[in-house]
């Protein structure tokens, strides 16, 4: 198969992944390696009077039990890439249940796990602030702890005046619960020091970020840290930053002089890594009788930890989605003795559109205007808050094509019946801001016509290896079989994080530039013409004629300030069945249409959108991580007490398509990120479909049977 942009090239890492050859962090062994198991604090707040580890140390196979007393004093790392300024195991304070207080090291998994259960913490408990239950009271203005990427309060136009004058109002509060990412791969890291140099194999979305943090913590230079991340088994945001286990593993390896592998249990994924915190969002809409929005007011309060104010900018949705004359937004935090939250697939607009999209659908019902019509009336021709033109926006076509494919215009007023099912239909907007990070890459050409792409980016399942191969093939005119790709190593050219749907724009552009640079260098050194996409034969001939065995093209991408507003758009339509006798809802079909610029690979792009819709279905109807407020701990730190979608939940009839489009302002590829867009809007569309089927507006996710019977 030929490659190049727009070709549905099969995943280049397919053979490795279907045979088990692909190794993830916890699949790595090292000579003399110790298994490390973290011990978590038993209470959500307090002080450690002491830790009795004698029984643990006495077990056969146990080599060390390390507590804060044994840990080196580590310097504060920058946030981000560190998740928190609070370095683990540096003092006797406990700020959340499960906070690491010790690590057991042993020669076998069995000994390490058993020993960890024998470590006894003598704790003086302190009063604690529990995870709030969907209430607004107690919220604070966020402090700067590395997460203020924009203002917490912003206003455009005269909101008070617009609210006072508009004849139609809608005020509602929407809640989404704390939810864990639950990638299938629990976080894991293998750390080893040799001659003052730290080598790590890590499950991460940002190998270079891990390096930055390790340099800061241990006071070492970048060339003294190597982080490899050959494959990351799903992440969705929880492996974006550096969490306690990575730091403790590196410190334990330093203390013991041995390789240390820490693979978190599923339960530890709940209490020592991250989750998307609960958000309580209040939206006020003011509109004219014909549906024109005069004002949007949007407040979002997210839960955060005692140590850091993580801010999830859900209210961004209200700054970017509809053309209201006046907009006011407010971000607040609700501090509690819980572990710190972080971004999760479909952050920002993905969170805000649950509230805003639902409110718009409620307004449509109130005004008896079709939800698409109401959206067209308020279509934002330019960025509503800044007035910037969009780099590219084909949202109207998404509405039109989606509505046609779904049969939206035939939506009956009353739900239809199909056996025991009442059938409801709903739709909503999808939107996601565009993140771009600096990245660099090399493309190395060989005289036999092969090429190797080198970039320190990481594979979390998006298809990056395949995308980069296509981009290089597109420039060089090579068959994909001649191109290989090396990623996931800080010895490779620096690349940005794999989050915020940023990799194709950033790393992709760097690879394109590197391939072009290689071609330019070859033209110069060989004197050959070498037109566009020369192909293996011409490349090889030019290299041989110039007597070059190997040639390296260098490329980079740095986002520039743009006069354009960059964003992706879409429309999602869902049909749900509601069984009133049993109280259950099921997805029957869905249609998504998206405006994202150029599609590099329709196959991997489809996978992203389908995965996003399933993700959104899980958010809408089943996922919630719950804290027991009296105990101050997560309940059901597992995959049995918290439901995630399974195969049987997803019908075959999920239809996703992209508008044929190239966004020239987004970067040289002409495409934008799409890894998160598909997960946005699904919740609001499902809630509207449930309203259609049941007549009930559910404003708190997930929409579970207890809310429907």
């Amino acid at each position, binding site marked *: 198969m030929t490659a190049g942009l727009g070709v549905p090239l099969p995943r280049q890492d397919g053979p490795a992944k279907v045979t088990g050859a692909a190794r993830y962090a916890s699949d790595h062994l090292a000579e003399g390696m110790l298994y490390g198991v973290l011990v978590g604090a038993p209470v959500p707040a307090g002080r450690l009077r002491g830790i009795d580890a004698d029984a643990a140390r006495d077990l056969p196979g146990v080599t060390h039990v390390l507590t804060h007393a044994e840990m080196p004093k580590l310097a504060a790392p920058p946030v981000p890439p560190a998740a928190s300024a609070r370095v683990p195991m540096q003092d006797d304070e406990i700020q959340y249940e499960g906070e690491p207080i010790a690590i057991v090291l042993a020669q076998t998994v069995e000994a390490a796990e058993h020993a960890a259960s024998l470590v006894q913490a003598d704790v003086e408990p302190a009063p604690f602030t529990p995870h709030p239950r969907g209430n607004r009271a107690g919220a604070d203005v966020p402090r700067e702890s590395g997460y203020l990427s924009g203002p917490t309060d912003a206003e455009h136009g005269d909101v008070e005046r617009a609210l006072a004058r508009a004849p139609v109002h809608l005020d509602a509060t929407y809640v989404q619960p704390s939810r864990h990412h639950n990638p299938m791969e629990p976080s894991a890291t293998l750390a080893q020091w040799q001659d003052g140099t730290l080598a790590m194999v890590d499950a991460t979305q940002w190998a270079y970020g891990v390096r930055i943090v390790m340099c800061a913590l241990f006071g070492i230079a970048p060339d003294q840290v190597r982080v490899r991340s050959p494959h990351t088994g799903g992440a969705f945001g929880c492996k974006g930053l550096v969490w306690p286990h990575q730091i403790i593993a590196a410190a334990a390896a330093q203390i013991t002089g041995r390789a240390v592998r820490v693979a978190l249990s599923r339960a530890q994924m709940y209490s020592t890594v991250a989750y998307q915190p609960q958000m309580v969002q209040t939206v006020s809409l003011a509109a004219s009788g014909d549906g024109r929005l005069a004002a949007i007011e949007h407040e979002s309060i997210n839960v955060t930890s005692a140590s850091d104010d993580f801010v999830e900018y859900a209210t961004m949705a209200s700054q970017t989605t509809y053309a209201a004359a006046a907009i006011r937004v407010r971000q607040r935090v609700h501090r509690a003795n819980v572990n710190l939250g972080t971004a999760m697939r479909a952050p920002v607009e993905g969170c805000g559109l649950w509230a805003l999209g639902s409110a718009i659908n409620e307004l449509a019902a109130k005004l008896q205007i079709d939800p698409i019509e109401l959206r067209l009336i308020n279509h934002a021709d330019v960025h509503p808050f800044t007035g910037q033109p969009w780099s590219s926006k084909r949202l109207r076509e998404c509405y039109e094509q989606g509505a046609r494919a779904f049969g939206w215009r035939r939506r009956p007023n009353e739900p239809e019946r199909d056996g025991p099912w009442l059938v409801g239909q709903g739709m909503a907007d999808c939107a996601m801001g565009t993140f771009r990070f600096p990245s660099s890459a090399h493309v190395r050409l060989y005289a036999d016509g092969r090429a190797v792409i080198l970039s320190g980016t990481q594979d979390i399942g998006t298809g990056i290896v395949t995308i980069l191969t296509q981009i290089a093939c597109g420039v060089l005119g090579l068959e994909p079989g001649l191109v290989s790709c090396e990623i996931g190593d800080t010895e490779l050219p620096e690349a940005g994080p794999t989050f915020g749907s940023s990799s194709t724009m950033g790393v992709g552009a760097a690879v394109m530039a590197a391939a072009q640079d290689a071609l330019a260098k070859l033209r110069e050194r060989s004197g050959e013409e070498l037109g566009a996409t020369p192909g293996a034969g011409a490349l090889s001939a030019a290299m041989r004629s110039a007597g070059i065995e190997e040639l390296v093209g260098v490329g980079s991408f740095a986002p520039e300030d743009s006069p354009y507003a960059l964003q992706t758009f879409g429309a999602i339509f869902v049909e749900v069945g509601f069984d009133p*006798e049993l109280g259950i809802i099921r997805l029957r079909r869905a249609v998504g249409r998206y405006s994202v610029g150029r599609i590099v690979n329709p196959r991997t792009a489809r996978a992203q959108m389908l995965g996003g819709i399933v993700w959104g279905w899980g958010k809408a109807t089943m996922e919630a991580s719950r804290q027991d407020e009296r105990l101050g701990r997560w*309940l059901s730190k597992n995959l*049995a*007490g918290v439901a995630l979608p399974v195969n049987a939940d997803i019908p075959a009839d999920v239809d996703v398509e992209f508008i044929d489009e190239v966004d020239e302002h987004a970067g040289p590829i002409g495409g934008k990120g799409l890894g998160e867009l598909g997960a946005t809007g699904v919740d609001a569309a499902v809630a509207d479909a449930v309203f259609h089927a049941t007549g009930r507006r559910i404003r708190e996710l997930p929409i579970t049977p207890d809310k429907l019977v």
Partner: protein
Amino acid sequence: MRPFAYARAATLDDALEAARDAGTVVLAGGTELLNWLRLGIAAPDRVLDITRIDGLDRIEQLAGGGLRIGALVRLNDVAADERVARDWPVLREAIHKSASAQLRNLATIGANLLQRTRCAYFRSEEPVPCNRRAPGSGCAARNGHDDRHALFGWTEECIATQPSDPAVALAALDARIVTRSAGGGRRIPVTEFHVLPADGVDRDTVLEPGELIEAIELDRPAPRSAYVKVRERESYEYALASAAATVELGEGGRIESARIALGSVAMRPWRLTEAEHRITRLAPVDPAVSAALDAALAQARPVPGSAYKLAIARGAARRALMTAAGVPS
């Protein structure tokens, strides 16, 4: 996991002898025991593997049309048995709606009845107040998250529920559990097998130490039977509530006899005996059938968070009954 010693029993008699020791637990499919060991719910000195005992993995026809299912028959093999599929579809459905294909290849029909509650406090990785985990420590669920909890038969000591799907079907089928112990053996109706909290939270079933399940016996066929399981997701999840129903239809399609058991509403499958009597001789679609179910559920006593399950349990019971009777929903 605490260290333990492992051994295999070659015969049931060997197993009975070894299992009398309080520090020994018996391993069959392992799908529950391994998690108990990991969570500290069980911390034995010895694990006795009984999976290689000959003869307990067979399904045999009984005189009079019944069936004897050896305790070690894997769940998927019970469901795949042609006689079960034909004559006891409720059991097949309950099995297929439990766990996953992989787990059902391991889990055995006998040990499935010994599944312990899914109460999140009971299953906690670290100890939290739970009278079943630590006697006298209290019940964190009673004033905590109680929405998965009981509708019937709970006490302040424990508000949990029994999660087995096959147990619900077997209760509706009036199946018997055949046990063996060093002193002999007995037959226990499935409906009397699990112990309600009022009779103590120190044990889940009436099995005595050293007493093992040898087989399950089914009586006369129940070809008109169905299982309905209600859960947020479509598969691989425990029930919010479930229902098993069997009916025999007589002249004019009237209900000659019916048996209904609810699942995940108490610490044992909950038979709706009174409703079963009230609906005999009624047509399945008779409004009095629904009224009888309403009356049965009116006797429930939910904890605050589980009140919503009343409607679900009622709906599941009605659906199971109608499906068993062949009435389309």
